[in-house]
């Protein structure tokens, strides 16, 4: 599996890609907070927020529908909120033929608002990872005072993610070829047996990874590792265009809240 298959970073050269990663992280988080705190049925603010996302993804050369399409993965989760339509008190719009369930306007409004809020927040997070490389993201988090150890562990994980998913793919392929299935007969044994095979694969992967971690650590020691993974790189100063973008973002967030609340 090639890393680019898994990585969501889109290599482009746009003004959004060149923005200070710290700024992008902070703006994303505050955008999501602003989204979550918008009241139900703030359609104007939702529309405006979506307009902002669309224009940013246009500026980032990602294409208009890039984030909207990828944010559809939120859809299966909406099942957890769907019942609020029938239980929230409000003016009845429709009574279901079975039971005493009533579709209320307040419930419907809340349900749709929850989904829109979630969909918009997801699009902003997608924008962040699509325009910021992993290394930049980690450096930004380090400069935002996330503890060094967490950054190092996450960076280490990222480095070996592709190695271990490759290894897992090989294990799965080997299982497929062992469990040859005929058209009229399923491959593999009973449910217990299948679960045990899967468990043994996990155990196998665990041991291989644990021993790999030992080897990696020994190799690091041999290269002079002394619990300092990387030399601390200074956090760069924000350039004037970063400050301008930040000011624009703050203005937009205020505007969103004003539109949403009044």
């Amino acid at each position, binding site marked *: 599996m090639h890393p680019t298959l898994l990585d969501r970073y889109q290599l482009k050269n746009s003004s959004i890609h060149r923005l200070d990663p710290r700024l992008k992280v902070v703006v994303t988080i505050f955008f999501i907070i602003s989204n979550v705190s918008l009241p139900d049925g703030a359609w104007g603010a939702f529309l405006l927020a979506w307009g902002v996302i669309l224009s940013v993804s246009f500026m980032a050369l990602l294409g208009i529908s890039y984030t909207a399409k990828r944010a559809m993965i939120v859809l299966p*989760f909406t099942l*957890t909120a769907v019942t609020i339509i029938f239980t929230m008190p409000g003016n009845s719009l429709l009574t279901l033929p079975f039971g005493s369930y009533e579709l209320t306007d307040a419930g419907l409004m809340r349900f749709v608002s929850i989904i829109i809020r979630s969909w918009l927040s997801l699009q902003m997070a997608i924008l962040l990872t699509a325009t910021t490389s992993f290394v930049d993201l980690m450096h930004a988090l380090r400069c935002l005072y996330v503890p060094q150890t967490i950054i190092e562990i*996450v960076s*280490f*994980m990222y480095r*070996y993610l592709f190695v271990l998913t490759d290894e897992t793919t090989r294990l799965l392929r080997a299982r497929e070829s062992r469990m040859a299935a005929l058209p009229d007969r399923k491959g593999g044994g009973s449910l217990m047996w*299948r679960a045990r*095979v899967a468990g043994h694969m996990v*155990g196998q992967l665990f041991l291989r990874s644990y021993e790999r971690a030992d080897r990696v650590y020994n190799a690091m020691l041999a290269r002079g590792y002394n619990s300092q993974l990387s030399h601390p790189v200074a956090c760069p100063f924000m350039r004037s265009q970063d400050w301008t973008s930040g000011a624009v973002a703050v203005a937009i967030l205020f505007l969103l809240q004003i539109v949403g609340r009044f």
Partner: protein
Amino acid sequence: MLILPILPNVPLWVDNPSMHLPDGFLSLPISLFCWLVTIALLIVAIQRTKIELGERQVPLMGIMAALIFAAQMINFPVAGGTSGHLLGGVLASVVLGPWAGMVVMATVIGVQGLLFQDGGLLVMGANILNMGLLSSLVGYGLYRTVLGQSRAVQIAVIGGAAWLSVMTGALATALQLWLSGTSPLTIVIPAMLGIHAFIGIGEAFITVAAITFIRQTRPDLLETGATTAQGGRGWMVGGLAVTALVLILSPWASADPDGLERVAEDWHFLARGISAPYQIFPDYTLPFLGETAFSTVMAGTVGAIVVAIVVMLMARLLQKLTKAPTVFNP
């Protein structure tokens, strides 16, 4: 998902969407509260693993996190197109120790949210708490209580803990959804617990099989992971407390949701979205601890007895199974 068309037989973790909360489903106060709890626990976990592992901490935790991420791809077909797969919290905490398990699971969930948008950013604290920290606590706490017991009992308890860890995460998620005013309590708790009772079985089978395999191949690993953890009694108490809470809260919340809502109202917990309509209830001022309290405790006790019987039966069954030598050809 980007890699689905290329690897049709590798369903990603997305086939269990009800656990990775996306942003927007939890209210701001609940999200921030969960972040606070998560940050506090993670700070301790990072410090403890640093003391235990020294400079091995970073490579070991990083690679183990990548392992859990990859191991979540390993699935097995159950029935009707659904498949069981691993979350890994109990596996990590039993083999690596509880603090290390917490660090590993938090890293996995953090990267899933940050890089793959599997789970939101603002609700990441809640996701880490539900799927990582609580499962480590339950898994290691229950395992620790039977550390000196026979192998079959240990394996059975690990299986029970794996199932319970999934249920704990589901219950926590359901409660957070309800407190945020996203789902009504009467529906979200039975639905989440019902679905995850099945998902938990897959988790239990895979965890037990994986740990049996590790024990046969590298028994030293399990010994070091279990003994290096400090404060064994604290873990036991914590694990048993969460277990008892889940066993008491689940039947109560399913049978008497009004009682739970009154408690939440009294404590000003409930999001304003759904709190208003309940003020019209005249019995709002009544003390909630009436006949319900007794029935609640009884329900929890019955649940605990049932789980104990199941665990004993599993131990009996496993004792028979483990006598036969298992051959594994990778």
